[in-house]
């Protein structure tokens, strides 16, 4: 069972992610494929309002824009540790599309990348089997400040720290 880290703690995951929806029935707190949610929105949201959507890192935020104020959770799949597309997607969802709900990373999530993910707007991470959550929490704290602005701190260091001392 993968471990879920949310807001800097290990928590119980009470969402269920499904690869496909087969019979048109969706239980509350299910994360369904974004494409399914887009094409079946009226029927889906009449069953339950507690629906999350997931999409791959190369997904287009425009495609799910109509859903963003209706879903409490968006999950982005990382197909490979070194595939950074999900990071840009997260930045766009947070900054350009104003998504305020839970933004979750899953798939090939490497603990040492979680600090990057956090700064791109993710707030929960599904750690793959065999990865130690304590190591992950430590890795997230290994660098405490950064030069650039980010989703969680838009001001770069030169706008908030007295540089040159």
């Amino acid at each position, binding site marked *: 069972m993968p471990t879920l880290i949310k807001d800097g703690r290990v928590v119980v995951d009470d969402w269920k992610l499904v690869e496909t929806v087969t019979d048109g029935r969706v239980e509350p707190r299910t994360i369904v494929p974004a494409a399914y949610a887009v094409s079946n929105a009226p029927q889906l949201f009449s069953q339950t309002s507690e629906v999350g959507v997931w999409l791959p890192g*190369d997904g287009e935020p425009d495609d799910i824009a109509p859903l963003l104020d209706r879903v409490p959770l968006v999950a982005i799949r990382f197909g490979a*540790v*070194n*595939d*950074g*597309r999900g*990071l*840009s*997607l997260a*930045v766009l969802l947070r*900054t*350009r599309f104003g998504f305020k709900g839970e933004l979750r990373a899953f798939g090939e999530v*490497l603990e*040492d*990348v979680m600090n*990057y993910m956090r*700064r*791109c707007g993710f707030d929960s991470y599904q750690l793959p089997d065999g990865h*130690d959550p304590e*190591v992950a929490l*430590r*890795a997230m704290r*290994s*660098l*405490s*400040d*950064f*030069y*650039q*602005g*980010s*989703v969680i701190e*838009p*001001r*770069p*260091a*030169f*706008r908030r*720290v007295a*540089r*040159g*001392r």
Partner: protein
Amino acid sequence: MYRYDQFDQHFVDERVAQFRDQTQRYIDGGLSHADFLHLRLRNGLYIQRLAPMLRIAVPYGTLASRQLRMLAHIARHYDKGYGHLSTRTNMQFNWPDLAEVPDILADLATVQMHAIQTSGNCIRNVTADQFAGVAADEVVDGRPYCELIRQWSTAHPEFDWLPRKFKIAVNGAARDRAAVDIHDIGLEARRTSDGIVFDVKVGGGLGRTPILGSLIRESLPDIHLLTYLEAILRVYNRYGRRDNKHKARIKILVRAVSPDIFRDQVDAEWAHSKDGPTTLTREEIDRAIAAFTPPQYPALESQPASLASARLADPEFSRWVATNVAPHKQSGYAIVTLSTKVTGVPPGDVTDVQMDAVADWADRFGFGEIRISHEQNFVLPDVPQRDLYEVWKLARAHRLASSNRGKLTDIICCPGGDYCSLANAKSIPIAEAIQRRFDDVDYLNDLGEINLNISGCMNACGHHHVGHIGILGVDKKGEEWYQISLGGNAGRDASLAEIIGPSFSRADVPDVIEQILDVYVEHRADGERFLDCYRRVGIDPFKERVYANAH
């Protein structure tokens, strides 16, 4: 030069501790080989053919003497007593012990150095003109902007996991010594009545698909530099190919959609971030510029009589002055290139003793600053003209006084099959064979400016596509062969070399080069450089000569 503030120092110190933790987890088995690979690459550590290789960043090729002494210490203490200057103006060590790498990085941090993002699919060390700040033909010193880009690109949350490596260069002089046309992003700084602006070229690069960059924005005001770079990087990060590593550089994307469409995509992206918080402040730009304030140059006589008489008395010195000394913007001073290209020594290799010596000369004959050029040489930027003879004698005693800057034997060469696990063929023995064949200084001087670049594989670390003469190692049924190309150039009027024909065996390469040079000497007009002659007469006369026996 730029000095770390508390913020910078804190960052590199934390980064060292982070890598120490990652290395320990790998050694303990908590981090898999595949996962550790991504992390070590972003800290400069490759696992090469013989041993790990550690690539240390020398941002925009500028080093303080105490930093070079630290590199000498690392060479002596952790390695086999030498290091290698790379074409990205970095320093590479070929024999570190994996478990000791965190200690090396900790030592580096004490002199404000690091190995962050010197490899991996991320934004690499930003390079500049090796004569930045001192060149007589300079318009803008690009290094303050390189430093701002360095800070912005370090551990960028969004752009550390790109489709492929990403290289940025800044030039600000009449001549282009930074080779901006062959970079993922090449920035040309200019001075206007409204302040400093940049012309932005994107999508240049060598490798399997050599392409010169396309100009996508003119006159970008300096305060917008980072937001504009961010827009380019976001388009690339999202849409660059990831299915084939040979097609993953930004040049492939730019060519696929066309530079015009790419520019539109960048502009659409930029519209959202322009004038946002990442916009540089005048104060921050001024802080960076102030870090590169020229030293207080004591007034010195220009072209002192002692220099002229030393040149008259010593023709070897005179030859060196003609080739390896460049004009300085300050009267009475000169820029000295200390060539690492000595026959029998791999181009770019320098010993700990040489490093210590160069550091001492930088203190004695300058302001404690050294440069590394992408041609893999050391540069002393601020030598008083009256001391040139003394510097030359010292350099000669340390085998750093080859009078060959820009000449045939100033070969750019990758480590090749002797060290690199990617290489198809060795490159260092080719360089040595050519240096041995053409060792007559008068002949070399007569040939004039010729850039000969050698790469051991298609990755083109030796920049063979932009050599006036390029040599590429290829694998033919398990044997090492060499393809020769002509007419490349990395400077202001950049061009890509044209392949002359079928490849040659290693033993034949020096003969083929000699034939090529013969054709040049026969066809050249008075004072015509090799490159200009080639451009005028074309490839055919060269082709006919070197393949004459094959017909």
